[in-house]
Structures are given as structure tokens and as C-alpha cells.
């Protein structure tokens, strides 16, 4: 009861944040993801890219974890810790880039479909069905096969592959908000359709889209590493968690540490995003609790 009083009259964002803050596991997710972002931003300060992360040193190849190399060295004598740290740039960079494309594209398409309804909606949803019939990672593989395997094309392919999910979420949210009385009143005072969508409808669809953003980012980051693992993503010597795991396959006998740390990095990132997503979902829909 007391809680309710404290955020009554506050904005929706504040209410979500208020509930989110009191959820320990969600906060843990936020802390982990913030740390990972910091590591990615300051990767160059921690380890020089040219000097350590991609520098080959055959004299020190395949060394087990030690004080000098806390995670050991790989088959080219590169420090695995430095590579894991720099790998966060690739994964988080593509994660953020891809999800931004998907959020932007999906929200616009979904909002238009949901708002106008009728034939527009039908056409958009049929096309979405077709895209949804192909799993994200396969869609990305096909696009990458044509467009090449740079980080930018991978971010774009995974972003495009994730658009339909956002289209559905945005459309669903718009469909419920559309019927609200405040939309009717906005229309009554003569607001343009574009104003109604951007000022009145989209801000009220914020919560489900935010939840989907964290979940889709997890999927994108998993797909990046999956693609690289298959040799269809980021190529060596660029440090990428999936391709590092792929390289470790030849050295499982005796140098198993190579297969451990990049995987832990992926798991930690995904775990944090899942905690964040669960927390946001619970916070934005208190009825579920």
C-alpha cells in the first residue's frame, strides 16, 4: 500500500524504475551489464589492441593460466584475457547496433500496421509471417553469405532478422493503446496521425518494447558468437568469443582453458540480459508478480 502511494502520480518510467530497483536479481543483471559495457568502452585502456589482443607471440603459445596470463594464451600465443576483454566490444557493439536497427525498424512498421489496421495491417503481418518462418540465425547466415562478414554487415543482418519480432510486439501494444480514451481525445482536438502515433501511442508502448529489446539483444549476441563459431561471422585475428571457442576445438586435449573463458563471457552477458529482461517485465507489469 505504502509503495503504491510513493509512486502515484509519477511517470510510467519512474514507476517501472521504482519497482525494478527493489528487485535484487534484476539489479544484479543491471550491474553486470553496466560493468561489461565499461569493460568494452575501456578495453583499449586495459589491454592494447595491436600490442596485446591480436599480437602473435609463438614463444608463448598455449600457456596455461598463470599470473602473467590469467586466462592463458591461445595457439598463436595471444593473451586470452585481453582477447576476451576486446571481444566484449564486438559482441556488445553488434548487440546494441543490431537491436537498435530492429527496434527502430520494427517499431515504425508495427506502429503503422497497428494504427492504420485494415489492408496495411494485413500486408505487413503476412510479410512478417514470412520473415518469422526463417529463424534469426539462419536469416543472418543467408544475408551474411551475400553481404560479407564484417561486424557492420553482421549487425545489420541480425538487426533485420529481428525486425519482425519487434513489429509484432509494437503492433500488439499499439492495438491496445489505440482504443484508449486519450487517443480519442487527441483525435478530437485535431491532432495529426503522425503526432498521435509519435506523441501519444508510442510512449505508452514503451514497456513491452523495452523488455523485447533486452531479450532480442541476448539473442543477437548469441547469434553473433554462433555465426563466428561456424566460421560465418567475425574472422580471426579479430577477437570474438564464438570464433575463439571455435579455435579451441583443436586443443581440447591438454589446453581446455581455451574453451572455458570465452564461453563464460558469453554466458555472463546473456545471463545479465536475461535477468534485466525478466526484471523489466515484472516491473512493467506488476500484475504478473
Amino acid at each position, binding site marked *: 500500500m505504502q509503495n503504491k502511494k510513493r509512486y502515484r502520480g509519477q511517470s510510467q518510467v519512474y514507476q517501472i524504475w521504482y519497482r525494478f530497483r527493489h528487485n535484487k536479481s534484476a539489479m544484479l543483471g543491471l550491474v553486470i551489464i553496466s560493468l561489461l559495457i565499461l569493460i568494452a568502452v575501456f578495453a583499449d585502456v586495459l589491454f592494447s589492441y595491436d600490442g596485446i589482443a591480436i599480437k602473435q607471440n609463438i614463444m608463448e603459445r598455449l600457456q596455461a593460466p598463470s599470473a602473467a596470463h590469467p586466462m592463458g594464451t591461445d595457439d598463436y600465443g595471444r593473451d586470452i584475457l585481453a582477447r576476451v576483454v576486446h571481444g566484449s566490444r564486438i559482441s556488445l557493439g553488434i548487440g546494441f547496433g543490431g537491436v537498435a536497427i530492429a527496434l527502430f525498424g520494427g517499431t515504425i512498421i508495427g506502429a503503422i500496421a497497428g494504427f492504420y489496421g485494415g489492408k496495411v495491417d494485413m500486408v505487413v503481418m*503476412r*510479410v512478417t*509471417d*514470412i*520473415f518469422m*518462418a*526463417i*529463424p*534469426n*540465425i*539462419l536469416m543472418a*547466415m*543467408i*544475408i551474411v*553469405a*551475400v553481404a560479407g562478414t564484417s561486424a557492420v554487415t553482421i549487425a545489420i543482418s541480425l538487426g533485420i532478422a529481428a525486425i519482425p519480432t519487434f513489429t509484432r510486439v509494437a503492433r500488439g501494444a499499439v492495438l491496445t493503446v489505440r482504443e484508449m480514451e486519450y487517443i480519442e481525445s487527441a483525435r478530437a482536438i485535431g491532432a495529426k496521425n503522425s503526432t498521435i502515433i509519435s506523441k501519444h501511442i508510442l510512449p505508452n508502448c514503451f514497456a513491452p518494447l523495452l523488455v523485447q529489446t533486452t531479450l532480442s539483444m*541476448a539473442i543477437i549476441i*548469441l547469434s553473433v*558468437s*554462433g555465426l563466428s*563459431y*561456424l*566460421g*560465418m561471422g567475425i574472422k580471426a585475428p579479430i577477437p570474438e568469443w*564464438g570464433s575463439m*571457442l571455435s579455435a*579451441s*576445438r583443436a586443443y*581440447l*586435449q591438454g589446453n*581446455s582453458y581455451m*574453451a572455458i573463458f570465452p*564461453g563464460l563471457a*558469453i*554466458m555472463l552477458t*546473456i*545471463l545479465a540480459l*536475461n*535477468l534485466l529482461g525478466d526484471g523489466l517485465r515484472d516491473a512493467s507489469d506488476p500484475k504478473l508478480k
Partner: protein
Amino acid sequence: MWKFVLKRLLALIPVLFGVTLLVFLILSFAPGDPARTILGAEATEEQINHLREEMGLNDNVFVQYARYIIKGVSGDLGTSYKTRLPVVTEIVSRFPYTLRLVVVGMIIAIIIALPLGVIAGVKQNSLFDRLSMVLSLLGISLPTFWVGLLCILLFSVTLGWLPSGGNDSLKDMILPTLTISLCSLAGIARTTRSSMLEVIRADYIRTARGKGISQAKVVIRHALQNAMIPTLTVAGLQICNMIAGTVLVENIFSWPGIGRLLVTSIQERDIPLVLGCIIVFTICFTIINLVVDILYGVIDPRIKAQYKK
């Protein structure tokens, strides 16, 4: 009921057209010349051009697509650029492997996840509940291919109990199915638990208990059956994820299924084979969604009544 099934199967047709057109269009921009790939580096320009003409590669993309569809309707999905075998033959020989992997993986996932989720839901906040939920949270955060790698590391390299590849004996199947079921298992357990939590405090559960029905019967007949709908939804999604995941898992364990075939055919720009694999995947997803919808009706008579309309 049959009308409903038929309607859904008919809806598959436009989706198949759309999916193949989409993939066809994207891959038409792929670098490299299939004719050159087939003939090898020593072929003359004339030979290549001749083959291109023969394969219809010089025509407009949409003409090529139309030809593909006309042939496809009669069951001819073209021939693989690489092996020169009919795509249908390639797929028919590989599909049973994928099917086996996914079906066994799903059975394992459900057998473990359902009891886990039910017990965790009934005994909310117990040690068992907390432990299993932490584990399943970790489970949904694990990349499948890393699980596969760790399984090989533990069971093949370190302990030497199980083979890391191959497809002959039952033993070869253990690691791939274990890997593919793990992430789905975690997802299903989490959903089962949360939907059990929603129903377990309902009035009719209290009534059932009040009538003196045994705990087991209350949980299974009264609670679980009502909690099954979300579980079923997630299980359906997870099977689709599993099928998509075969591209990774089959590669790790050198499993000769459709997933691995798709990856190699994309890498080799073997367009007819890519299209064939994508068609199989799309059909699988549609059938799974249809089965899930039918099962909704089996579990919940209210939904079944809707289908009859």
C-alpha cells in the same frame, strides 16, 4: 477440427512461396558463379557460358524463380550444384538424422523439465525451487555450442566415456541430444513453474484439497492440466529453437542432418540445396505450431470449441 487443420495447412502455401522468394532474391546477389564452381578453375569462358545457359542462370531472377516454383510444385527441387544429386534425395537421406535428434532431445527435455517445474512451483521458495530455478536461469543463458563443447571436453576428452562424433550407435547420440535438450529443458521448466504458481492458489485447488483429494491428484489433475497451456506454448517454441539450433549442434558433433547440410550449402553457395533445407525447416515449424494448437484443444475444451466454428 479437420477443417481447422486443413485451413492451417493451406495457409502454409503462401508462406512457402514467400520464404523461397525471399531467400531466392537474397541469394541471387551472392558473389561467385555457380557454373564456374561446378566446372572448376580450368574451365574455359565458353564452357562456363554454355553451362550458364543450360542452367538458366542468364535469365532474369524472377524468371528463374518462376521456373523453380513450377518444377517445385511437381516435387522437383533441382539438383545440388556441388554433388549433382537431386536436392530431394539429399534431404531425404539427411532428414531422419535431424528428426531423431530433435525428437529424442524434446522427449528428454519434457521428461526432466515438467516434474522439475511442477515440484518447484508446488514447493515455492523451498531449497529445491531456488536451486532448480538458478540452474534453469543458467541453462537459458548458455550458448548451445558452448554446452556441446563442454560436453565433449568432459565426457569425451577427459573421461573418455562417450564419442565426440559419429552417428552409428546409440552411444553416439547421447551427447548431441543432451546438448540440444539442455537449453530447452531450462526454458520449459521455468514456464511450468510460473504457470503452476498462478493456478496453485486458485479457489478450485483449495476446494479439491478440501474434498480430501490426494496431493498428487490435485497437482496433476487439477493444477497441472490448467497450467499446461503456457508450458505447451513454450515447448512449441523450444522445438522450433531446437530445429534452428541443429545448425550449430550438428556441426559440433559432425551429425549428418539437415542443419549441417544447410550450413555447408550456404558456405558453398549451393542455392538449390539452401532453398531445399529452408523449405524443410519452414514445413517443420508449421507442423509444430499446428500440433501445438491441436494440443491446446485436447487440454482445454474451451479452445476446442473454438476450432469447431
